[in-house]
């Protein structure tokens, strides 16, 4: 690991100032450290400065009330998993948090870190493979090993976004709050992520240098709303998603009034499935409709050589998530 300066700011403003100072060099914010430290050990990240957000008070709150849920960037996943209000009203979020990695990691990992984590693609994680994500010219997964790669929204990079919380929060219509030297901005979480074709391929988000995620705000679901997160892992104990689905529905007498569906593990960003949502609206949710919605969600899939299996797999997950919400 390259040597770096470790800084413990007392406030968010100080943290941002430290990260954006003219002599800051490559500065990174440290939250739970579960991804950043591994990246540093593997020489994928070599910051000059590490600005510790844990020394900033108040970034780890979880507050439910006033028609919304506010979760600070430093709230740990284990708290999101266990918090009674989250479990009761934002089930997809607590289920997503519970599905992450191992209990040991969940007790350190944070919301902000989870949303900003870098890809798990093996080529990206191997220092020697200078892939597109690391400033190279080629996505090695495309013509190489691509069993774990994207089937939706791929190209010119075929990573899948590894976050479990992101699809759940997109399905719950969350907003993300960012703070930088120029002040604060809020945007729908969906707009926080960028497809490789639409922006800087070495990044997954719109986060600017020196900008920090401060919190996520999730609206209170309407009466009758239910949500769930269904994740499929190759190894149940400890793994990233091979495919996942977050769904949030309002049902009235079995008829779908609102629907938000977001897929995980299949695209470079949390992948919203508007065709599936449209297929559901105003119709009675039964097995046939769930199947139809699942097909709509995967209609645009363009698999690579080794990952066509993700299509039937994801369809099954969508169907099952919807039917679980209908029960």
């Amino acid at each position: 690991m390259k040597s770096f300066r470790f800084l413990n700011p007392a406030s968010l403003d100080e943290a941002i100032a430290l990260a954006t100072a003219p002599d800051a060099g490559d500065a990174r914010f440290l939250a739970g450290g579960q991804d950043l430290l591994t990246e540093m050990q593997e020489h994928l990240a070599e910051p000059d400065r590490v600005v510790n957000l844990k020394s900033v008070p108040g970034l780890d709150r979880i507050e439910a009330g006033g028609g919304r849920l506010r979760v600070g960037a430093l709230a740990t996943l284990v708290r999101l998993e266990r918090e009674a209000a989250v479990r009761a009203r934002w089930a997809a979020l607590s289920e997503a948090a519970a599905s992450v990695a191992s209990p040991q990691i969940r007790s350190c990992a944070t919301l902000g870190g989870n949303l900003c984590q870098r890809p798990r693609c093996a080529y990206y994680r191997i220092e020697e493979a200078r892939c597109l994500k690391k400033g190279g010219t080629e996505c090695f997964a495309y013509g190489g090993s691509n069993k774990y790669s994207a089937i939706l929204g791929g190209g010119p990079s075929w990573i899948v976004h590894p976050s479990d919380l992101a699809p759940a929060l997109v399905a719950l219509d969350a907003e993300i709050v960012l703070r930088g030297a120029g002040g604060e901005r809020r945007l729908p979480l969906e707009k926080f992520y960028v497809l490789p074709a639409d922006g800087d391929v070495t990044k997954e988000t719109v986060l600017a240098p020196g900008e920090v995620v401060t919190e996520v705000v999730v609206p209170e679901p309407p009466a009758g709303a239910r949500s769930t997160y269904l994740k499929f892992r190759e190894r149940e104990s400890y793994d990233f998603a091979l495919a996942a689905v977050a769904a949030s529905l309002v049902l009235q007498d079995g008829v779908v009034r609102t629907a938000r569906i977001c897929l995980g593990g299949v695209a470079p960003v949390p992948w919203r499935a508007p065709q599936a949502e449209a297929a559901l609206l105003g119709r009675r949710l039964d097995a046939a409709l769930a199947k139809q919605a699942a097909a709509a969600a995967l209609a645009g899939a363009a698999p690579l050589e080794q990952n066509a299996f993700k299509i039937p797999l994801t369809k099954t997950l969508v169907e099952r998530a919807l039917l679980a919400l209908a029960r």
Partner: protein
Amino acid sequence: MKLEPRAVPLQDAPPKRKVKTTQVVNGIETEVEIEVEDVPAGQWPPRASLRVLNHDIPRVDGPVKVSGAARYTHDVRVPGMVWARLLLSPLPRARVAALDLEAARAVPGVVHVLVVEREETGWLGQPVAVVAAETLEAAGDGLRALAARFEPLPWVVDHAAAVREGAPAVGRGANVGRPETDGDEARARAALSASATRVRATYTVPVQHHASLETHGVVVDYRGGEDAVVYCSTQYAQGFAAEAAKELGLKAGNVRGVVEHMGGGFGSKFGLDAQGLYACRIAKELKRPVHLMLDRRAEFLMSGNRSGTSMTIEAGCDAQGSLTGLVAEAWKHGGLGRGSLSGLPYCYKAGAHFRDVRSVRMHLDASRAMRAPGHPQASFGMESILDELAYAAGLDLVEIRRRNAAHPAWVRQLDRVAREIGWDQHPHRTQPGKPDREECIGIGFGISNWGSGGSSDCEAEVRIEKDGSVVVACAAQDLGTGTRMYMAAIAAEEFGLPVAAVTARLGDSRLPTGVASGGSVTTPSVAPAVKDACTRARGAFAAHLAQVLGRSAEGFRFGPDGVRHDGMTERLAWSKACGTLPAEGLSARGKWQESLQTRGVRCTQAAQVAVDPGTGRVRVLHMVCLQEVGLALNRLAVKSQIQGGMIQALGYALGEGRQLDSALGLQLNASFEEYKIPHALEIPRMTTLIDDDDTRNGVAGVGEPPAIPGASAIANAVHNACGARVRELPITPDKVLLALGKVV
């Protein structure tokens, strides 16, 4: 009355006789003839009379391991120690184009840079340079400062590329080895043609890793002078110390090898290895101790592996299900090594068989012995083809095994295991189930064997102290399987003591001759030697007491109620009896004895799985294992080791396998994130049964057989559940979905 101190020597040069035995060299079984002393054969007490042995004994080192207090080689710190790290070839074959030694030496804290390959590397992960520094971090910085540049040379890391015309040569000689054949091909093919039913299929097992939780490595404590201590994560402390002595240029007797605890070896840790060699060289150069442990990536790339296999098998049977013929053509993928594959038809008899096995070499680290080398691969091929044959002929999956098993022990084991897994109530005994529900339940079977006995060289020493405590010692190492425990338990049994009164010393090359712990030889080597030492110590103690008490030596009995003599009504407490010993106590050396061990253990397993056809997920619900073990010294430890084997096999079935990018020459899963060994949630219900119908009263090694048939049983269970025949391990969801025709 004055007591003379006495150590009891071995008898003078007893007569010798020759016996045939199976010995294991680096994990490979070999039939050899050895000379043993022709002394009256020692015997274990009848099982019914055992007080300590053949019971469940909690392990003595459990608490230190669970609490982290156990000192592994990784944990050793000695004064003045430097830390060394390796630079590995990032490509399977490359020219070493640049190494900036000056820059590395200039890194603060770096004390030594050793270049071990200046020209050309020939396998992925081959060490190129070693940097030693005052801290691990500085050593890492030194490696970066080398700014190594490698120019790729043509390589082959997959079968197809290696056998292609004009393929880059892997070392000297052809990439495809000479065929190893067995059987009469014409006869086997004729038998196949005459079969009532015949099937043919190709099965593939990937290269698997030992995945020891403790990586390979050593701490060489040499500070100049004539002596050194090497702390080594090894399966053979004495061999390791001898190799280190040679490298250090010291007398063999002056180098002590120590391994207090082992974090797994599975056949990959017999020798000094490259890292041990470099650590010795640097220690010798600097006259300072060197700590050199592999990091996880290096462990995956350069510490050996279980060779992969691709095998095409054709088998036929008659109308009753008796195998009439079998022809197998197989390739072994052992990197630079020859790989290993047990003979097919493995544990079955086939009327006529023929096999042709060849190794295909690649620019990858050489395969090494790994828990039952060659057996799991052969088992996967054999159990799979047997199932395919049974389905094709409409036969019961248990019946076809009973009919063809090469030994009657498997027949009784199959009956019991079938009962335990619920075969009679299972709906799919001759045809697989359909993928028509979220949980399709299937059952599969497999059998295995392993043959080795102990090493005739093994010795042990027992010392009875004047305060009544007992120390039993042997240089052999405890790989985590409970060697320490049973050494103490044997002495406790022999002297009528509680286990806690006995201390076992092991894992130290200065102790009496041990054995290389591979091929399940440790227990059948060490236990007889310890038992023999105890027998001799009892004799010597009796002789001593006879002198003190004026009684005949033959009449003394040692039991939990103390020392008795046939001619006395009162008994003597153990501590009182020991109090009569001279200050240095009493010691006796014992030797391995043929009569105290047994060889050849058979194992049968069944697995019950649930397959989800919607996702391809396979969940193992239940595994049953019934295994012969001869005399179980510690039933708890035996069952624990069997379970470890079953879990390892579950890993082979569902998660493990080296993944390479042939074009880039990279291993894509050289970490525990991507190399998916089972974790807690993957562990099924396990019914672990010791086959007590095996009444041989000798000690056998039990570690290999349970790791063999589990993957085969699981693979067959997946097919039995829903009709998805996956012929390539591991059985991951993508392959199940593909086999079910769900991927379009």
